[in-house]
């Protein structure tokens, strides 16, 4: 992993660690810690999605469904079978990985946006199942009483503890993905993105690599889902519908889909926008999201993280223009 990424990682870690100390002092924003827990959970969902969009060039419209499978697996295994949450979480991960493998293998063999179509259908099916299987899932009203996580006998209940737990996991996932991107696997992924045919002829199994990226995204979404279920303690199908899949796409696009940092920036920003700053729009929320998407696609296709390099480029241009004028 390059020096630059380590520096960004360090900067992000310092910010994340000190964030609660800053906001808890101010009464008006002290609940931002709670918002940030959600932001961290959504970041986990978005990291995998950004790899899929940025490197495999594919769109997934079932990210919320994987998120939901993770959440409900945790919910059902802990409340109905009394299993430990730390067993339920990997179970959800394995289930999501399997499902992604089954959907991805045929859909990613074909060129074009077949994965988007397949996942669109799958997402809707999952949502219907969650709403209809009343015995298992509690139906539209969902399930409650999902136990909190425990670490070494210590129950995690406070927002602050959750905050550090979730963001710790987010950073582990980020490091995991950055490690992949800066290895021969990442090189192969970038090669697929640039010249698929040539990559294939140099020995990159392009189809199966795309499937693996898709699986990775599904597994991360399952982790996020499980954390979500244990954090909010009650879940219902409306948190895992198509609208949420689109929201996750939006987070990745706003942040910048060609960088893993884009997922982080986009998820945090859009969580604040959605949970805090745009509440007043209520019903018109979807209009606002549509406008944001349109604006980003038109004016900032590289997302927010591309702003930094854009500014740097401007400055360079200005500097060279000044030099030209001076000489």
């Amino acid at each position, binding site marked *: 992993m390059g020096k630059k990424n380590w520096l960004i990682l360090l900067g992000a870690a310092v910010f994340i660690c000190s964030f609660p100390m800053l906001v808890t002092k101010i009464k008006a924003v002290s609940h931002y810690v709670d918002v940030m827990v959600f932001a961290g959970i959504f970041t986990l969902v978005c990291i995998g999605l950004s790899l899929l969009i940025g490197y495999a060039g594919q769109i997934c419209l079932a990210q919320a469904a994987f998120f939901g499978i993770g959440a409900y697996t945790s919910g059902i295994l802990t409340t109905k079978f009394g299993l430990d949450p730390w067993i339920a979480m990997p179970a959800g991960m394995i289930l999501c990985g399997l499902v992604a493998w089954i959907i991805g293998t045929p859909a990613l063999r074909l060129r074009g946006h077949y994965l988007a179509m397949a996942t669109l259908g799958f997402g809707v099916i999952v949502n219907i199942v969650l709403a209809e299987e009343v015995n298992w899932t509690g139906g539209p009203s969902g399930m409650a009483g999902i136990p909190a996580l425990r670490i070494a006998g210590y129950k995690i209940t406070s927002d602050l503890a959750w905050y550090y737990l979730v963001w710790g996991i987010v950073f582990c996932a980020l490091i995991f993905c950055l490690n992949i991107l800066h290895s021969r696997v990442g090189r192969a992924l970038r090669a697929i993105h640039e010249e698929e045919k040539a990559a*294939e002829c140099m020995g990159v199994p*392009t189809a199966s690599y795309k499937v693996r990226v898709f699986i990775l995204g599904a597994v991360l979404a399952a982790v996020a889902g499980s954390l979500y279920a244990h954090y909010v303690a009650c879940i219902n199908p409306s948190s895992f519908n198509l609208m949420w899949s689109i929201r996750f796409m939006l987070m990745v696009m706003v942040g910048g889909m060609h960088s893993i940092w884009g997922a982080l920036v986009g998820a945090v920003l859009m969580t604040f926008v959605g949970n805090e700053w745009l509440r007043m729009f209520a019903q018109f929320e979807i209009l606002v999201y549509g406008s944001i998407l349109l604006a980003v696609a038109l004016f900032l296709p590289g997302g927010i993280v591309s702003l930094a390099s854009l500014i740097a480029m401007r400055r360079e241009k200005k500097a060279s223009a000044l030099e030209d004028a001076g000489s």
Partner: protein
Amino acid sequence: MNTAASQPNAPILRIEGLEKRFGGVAALQGIDYEVPGGIIQAVIGPNGAGKTTLFNCISGMIEPSKGRISLEGCRLEGLAPHKIARFGVSRTFQHVALFRKMTVLENVMLGRRPRTRRGFLAAGFRFPGMRSEEERIRKKALEYLDFVRLAHLAGLDAGTLPFGKQKILEIARALATEPRLILLDEPAGGLNMRETEELGALIQQIRKLRVTVLLVEHDMNLIMDISDRILVLDFGKVLASGTPAEIKENRTVIEAYLGVENGRDTDAT
């Protein structure tokens, strides 16, 4: 290094009854041919003769409609390109297909893929050995860059190289897979005379690495200079084959191809 041409080597590539149809059009039909190991085998023919289709069949990018292709006894037809690459067949492309936003070195490092193993989990968790493997890949890639004399450009983005250098870089990337057979699709296309000469020397050096070279090219001077054998295709069929001297004298070839445009195909693109 003329031994390869004078001694009949065991065939490395065997093509039997190869046919490829696109709808009703036969791009290749009834191709039977053996390429002896360790030689430079040229494939010539007018545009649309099926040369690139032949390359695409061998490298697995398209599946033949009929027939067999075998590399030292291993059947290749119907395999995915990445598997064929593992078997030891590598190629370059008529229209340069480099990873433009990756550096020159990274392009060649990618070529090391078929010879290395580590996957997603090993990379994500940084298993021990990951770093040393990466170091080995880098070292090997630099060797190949050195071989084609591009080592001094290692850090540049491949897309910023001049066209001639890009063509050479593609060859280095293909060589890095340690192929037994390398397919060069019009490597001299778009090169100037000096660059073409250097390319000729490089291809002869590749043969010295005991890599069999299959060469599609329109530059007849280059072909006649360096190739050991020539296969002439016309309308998807074998028109003739033999040594450069034999082909030069071959009446059907002269009528069908060489004579028409005075030995140089002008619409090479």
